[in-house]
């Protein structure tokens, strides 16, 4: 299992780059995963999305409807198709959540979400 160094220690990732233990997450870990995923800066906007995904997962064990993310964070409606100028799957990884499974991946992977 690859490990990832962050400011304050190191954490384990699975072979696809998802945090091995959901409880090992903090904002410094998030910053390190973000860097690994090619996201240069975790802006406030992005952190807000990441925390929403994380809280939703802890409560429901699922990826939320993207439209729900937008509405809850008071983003514009277009957010549903091109959410938060950030690949939702990367946001999910940065949030320290486990591999969401093949069917979720096929719905969210693709060219629609600019990486930066």
């Amino acid at each position, binding site marked *: 299992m690859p490990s990832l160094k962050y400011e304050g220690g190191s954490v384990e990732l699975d072979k696809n780059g998802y945090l091995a233990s959901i409880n090992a997450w903090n904002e410094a870990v998030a910053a390190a995963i973000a860097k690994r995923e090619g996201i240069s800066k975790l802006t406030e906007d992005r952190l807000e999305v990441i925390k929403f995904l994380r809280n*939703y997962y802890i*409560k*429901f*064990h*699922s*990826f*939320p*409807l*993207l*439209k*729900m993310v937008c*509405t809850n964070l008071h983003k514009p409606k277009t957010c*549903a*198709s091109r959410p938060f100028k950030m690949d939702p799957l990367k946001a999910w990884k940065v949030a320290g959540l486990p591999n*969401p*499974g*093949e*069917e*979720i*991946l*096929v*719905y969210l*992977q*693709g*060219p*629609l979400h600019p990486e930066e």
Partner: protein
Amino acid sequence: MAKVKFEVPELTGEIAIPGLKEDAAAAVKSHNAPAKDMTDLGFPTELVPDWKEKAVAKFAELLKKYRSLKVFMDICVKCGACTDKCHFYLGTKDPRNMPVARAELLRKVYRRYFTTAGKVLGKLAEAEDLTREVMEEWYTYFYQCTECRRCSLFCPYGIDTAEITMAAREIMDTVGLGAKYPLQTINKAITIGNNLGMPGPAIRSTLDFMEEDVKEQTGVPVKFPMDVKGADVLLITPSADFFATPHVESLAGYAKVFHQAGISWTLSSYASEAGNFGMFNGNYEHMRKIAGRIKVAINELKPKRLIHGECGHAWRVAYSFWNTLIGPFDSLDPKYPAPQHICEFTYDLINRGALKLDKTANDDFVVTFHDSCNVARASRMGNSPGGQFEIPRAIIRATCNKFVDMHPDTIREKTFCCGAGGGLLADEIIDLRIKGVMPRMQAYKAVKDSHGANFFALICAICKAQFTKVFPYYGYEMEEVGGVHQLVSRAIVLGGKEGI
């Protein structure tokens, strides 16, 4: 705009038959299934040592079980009528994606082990040993078939090529060679109840959100009920309707239609999936397990009617297989078809004047309709032949002022596949998906040029996912893709005329 990483076919508005390019798609392979999913589904985790004997034995079993498979192995005369009918051949130019050539990968092994000429004469009788290389070819090309059955339509013998693909996949699964996307999806559907792996509370939270969203937009408290015992209608719909865009807009459409009709309805958290990928891999037991959840939901919720949402292959399973998988539906009201497609339901209400639709709500759109292959060629709707073509179009015409059909050779029973059905929606084969959708994109481009088409209406969850993904590669906006009930959702006038 999206980054274009792949060679995207040029859009001319016409479908040209390409010259052959040997092995053009030979490197495109679906990922292998992880050990966990293989084990859970009762398959070996990797190729077993005696794989050849096991594969031949499984082949023999399938030939005995499905007389049709044996007939399809025997009767092809290689007339070539199917060669230029496959979207994957037209898109990739790879000759082994000609349906007859793809099927030949299995037929040559069939001849070697199951015909006298093949056993005695070997290659002289066009027979070939099952080797590791042959098995690799199977894995490559039988996962480059979406089981859309367009080739079968043009076959003078009516050979169902999808059945050949299903058999090959079932043999490979049995010896430990499985594909990740379809098998992991089957496993999720069996264990959690839907392809996306969404637990009941997550679905409920989506439905709560949709109730608020519709209320905010319309001012009307449209309900999205789940697990309600004694509701008139149990709606079985693909789980993508609870998660993906634009799918969820059709879910809003269904809810508004039920609301306006004054008919009580419910979803089930236990049977939260219409899709049944068991069919794609030819595994009847998986199909039965996935569909079995619906039987449990019927027994628990005791609905009078069973209605099915917008999903292509799922409608084939529902229409053609549910009765033997989980029927008979004795507890349902015999006055209604079981199952009934949501389009039949809405169409009936429109005909009876029970819905008020404001076509001007869709005046921004010039709508065209893509017939999904499993609806078009493997099922029906309503009481008359061709209902599966007429009913969705009639609904669209009732919800908008501007509708145009694509070229007649690309619609109705001759429709082209979206390029990602049959368990091929996986990201690692996006290159194949982009090429496979080419014929459909040419037909769409033509009605864009001639009529300004800008809304691509669908009744299939996989089609919706595929087109939203590939449109940007061709320079079109993903927002042009939507559901038929998305149009209904926009046009329906709530309130005013309640009940029927």
